[in-house]
């Protein structure tokens, strides 16, 4: 039927092949530039020059659905400021929508939002980089120093690069030791104050009340909850785009061993607290759970549906040999002012209001990074009467205990942990066995984004 086809097509194929080969070899020779992507130019402190300002011009604000009502409240309180509100994902759950869009805007030279909220605490790393960084250094005559000083100690760390502050922190997610007071009383246990006591209690629980849990190691934020608190050098930046990763440090291995012991005993789960299986079968058996401040309402109240008056928070644990207890931090949103904004004044005012005002932050869902707002917030939390004990002293204390040796990086520690370590744990390996693989994964990822790793 089509016997002529193969012959002609074979000939054509040969011609095409010759042409392609020729083109490829030409191309291989034709290189006249280096294929290396432009090394990201680090912004020098003197580099920031605002664009020509237009007083009273409209500002565009990007925020997630949770933050939009706050922006609307600001709009209501300031009717003469022209604001265009755009709802977007807010970079929640590891999305990088803001970065993707800013990359495109950088290409066309227009479109940047004047103000942007991001739920990803790592977003400052890219927003402060590049030829013209997206984020404006707000400490350079945009937001007064007195305002910046009102934030909790270390709260602005994920925003500070080369001595400049590129964003304001919306909320903190400082880790505390959550526990079920009713269960602890019922079993006759004392709340631990050190990791050693925690481990001993975990082993005891496994024997006396099998099935009850003192922690989870399958969450994406396990590194921030356990390893950060252990002062593990998994993510220590030592300069612009320089990071130290050393998971064989004793401060890392001690936490890995602790978790391995409790996983083997069965009192630390390999599951994640938000999985349906966990909610269904294990939620009511959580005796203790080191975790961020938002666990209280978001996890125990809304998700686990633990009744009122059972859950309480204790101070972060310390290792016996250490002088002081430290804790980690799981996320926390950021507000950026665009360096391309034509109305920096309005943008700065909005960002200041969103992060510091009692009117908004006092009733927000998460712990405010601004100290004064946090006081109001804690008073409101007390009014809900959900917790068995007032969480205020513990929350305030732990907000200042975040170990400064763990830095925000352009890559997400959470993504690396859940895609590398969690599958290994579930295939029966121990954390200690996995440290090398984990280290390699962090190192590779960091290098691929232009970091120098040592």
């Amino acid at each position, binding site marked *: 039927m089509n016997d002529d086809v193969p012959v002609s097509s074979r000939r054509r194929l040969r011609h095409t092949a010759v042409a392609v080969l020729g083109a490829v070899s030409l191309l291989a020779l034709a290189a006249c530039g280096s294929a290396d992507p432009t090394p990201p130019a680090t912004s020098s402190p003197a580099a920031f020059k605002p664009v020509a300002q237009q007083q009273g011009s409209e500002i565009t604000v990007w925020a997630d659905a*949770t933050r939009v009502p706050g922006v609307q409240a600001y709009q209501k309180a300031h009717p003469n400021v022209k604001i265009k509100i755009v709802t977007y*994902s807010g970079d929640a759950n590891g999305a990088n929508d803001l970065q993707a869009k800013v990359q495109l805007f950088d290409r066309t030279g227009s479109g940047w939002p004047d103000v942007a909220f991001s739920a990803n605490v790592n977003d400052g790393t890219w927003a402060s980089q590049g030829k013209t960084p997206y984020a404006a250094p707000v400490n350079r005559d945009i937001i007064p120093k007195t305002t910046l000083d009102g934030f909790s100690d270390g709260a602005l760390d994920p925003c500070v690069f080369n001595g400049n502050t590129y964003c304001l922190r919306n909320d903190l*997610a400082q880790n505390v030791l959550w526990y079920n007071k009713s269960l602890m009383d019922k079993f006759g246990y004392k709340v631990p104050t050190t990791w050693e006591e925690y481990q001993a209690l975990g082993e005891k629980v496994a024997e006396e009340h099998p099935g009850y849990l003192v922690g989870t190691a399958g969450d994406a934020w396990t590194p921030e909850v356990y390893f950060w608190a252990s002062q593990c050098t998994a993510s220590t930046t030592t300069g612009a785009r320089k990071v130290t990763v050393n998971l064989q440090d004793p401060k890392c291995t001690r936490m890995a061993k602790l978790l391995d012991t409790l996983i083997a005993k069965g009192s630390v789960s390999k599951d994640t607290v938000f999985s349906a299986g966990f909610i269904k079968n294990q939620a009511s058996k959580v005796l203790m759970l080191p975790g961020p401040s938002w666990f209280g309402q978001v996890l125990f109240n809304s998700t686990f549906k633990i009744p009122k008056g059972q859950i309480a928070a204790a101070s972060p644990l310390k290792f016996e040999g250490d002088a002081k207890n430290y804790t980690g931090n799981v996320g926390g949103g950021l507000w950026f002012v665009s360096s391309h904004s034509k109305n920096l004044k309005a943008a700065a005012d909005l960002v200041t209001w969103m992060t510091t005002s009692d009117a908004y932050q006092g009733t927000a869902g998460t712990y405010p990074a601004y100290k004064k707002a946090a006081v109001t917030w804690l008073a409101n939390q007390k009014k809900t009467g959900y917790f068995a004990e007032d969480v205020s002293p513990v929350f305030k204390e732990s907000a200042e205990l975040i170990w400064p040796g763990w830095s925000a990086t352009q890559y997400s520690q959470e993504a690396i942990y859940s895609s590398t370590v969690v599958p290994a744990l579930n295939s029966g390996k121990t954390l200690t066995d996995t440290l090398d693989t984990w280290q390699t994964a962090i190192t590779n990822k960091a290098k691929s984004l232009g970091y120098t790793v040592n």
Partner: protein
Amino acid sequence: MRRKRRPSSLAARLAWLIVMGLSVLFFCVPVVWLLLAPTKTDGQIVRDNPFSFGSLGAVADAWHHLYAFQDGAIITWLLNSALYTFGALAITLVTSIPAGYALALTRFIGRRMLLTITMLVMLMPTAAMVLPLYLGMNAVHLDGTIWSVILPFSFFPFGVYLTYIYFSSNVPSDLLAAARIDGCSEWQVFRLIAMPLAKPVIALVGFFNFVGNWNNFFLPFVMLPDSSQYPAQVGLNNLLAASPLFNTSSGAGNQIMRPELALATLVTIVPVLIVFLFSQRALVSGMLAGATKE
């Protein structure tokens, strides 16, 4: 028209039943679960039997929560989606059906090249096209308008190929030759002979174009700067991101949980199912008309 073919033996009939039964289970069990999900509360979805029925009251609650999200944004998303997809559908049908016809049943210089280029472009990963498309739209100052979504949506090489294969294997060229000898112009041949036979392929092309665009997330996400322009998929993404399930920083008191997400999913697929049912009808009746062609 179609006679029921009798399987030769009981074993064959049994095998048919088993394969079909398993397939129906495979394709439908998750859908049934999804249909039941909005009738339950979030806790029931996780804790109860997956196939239990909650109550209709729960559906109403879920709808209230969903509707309250951004003051009824879900309706805006659906209307936007409808605007983009139907706009694109019209342009797609007007351009791809004649093109597929011409590629199959007329001869012109460059026909093979056009087929090859179409194939080549179709194989290009869409992720790579985003930046060029965005820059292109920006260059002609269409970025941010609805055209930046509708026009790329209308480019549908898949449909051109479907039409091409359909015409080249189903419509005998003798039929067209006869019409030409009778003095029909090319336009008349297309309109009077080809079009009536093309009903099934129009249904197919229209359907796949509609579904592809309705479910497209990335292009509108990149092109549209304003949340009031978002179509359903981009809106759903925001809805997911606002749910405490996926956004730990959303705080307590957010009403978007599993039942609301399930309901939102169901609401956004209803249009697709309606279009499917319509195009199925055209497909079947059209195929029957096609079967009597000789």
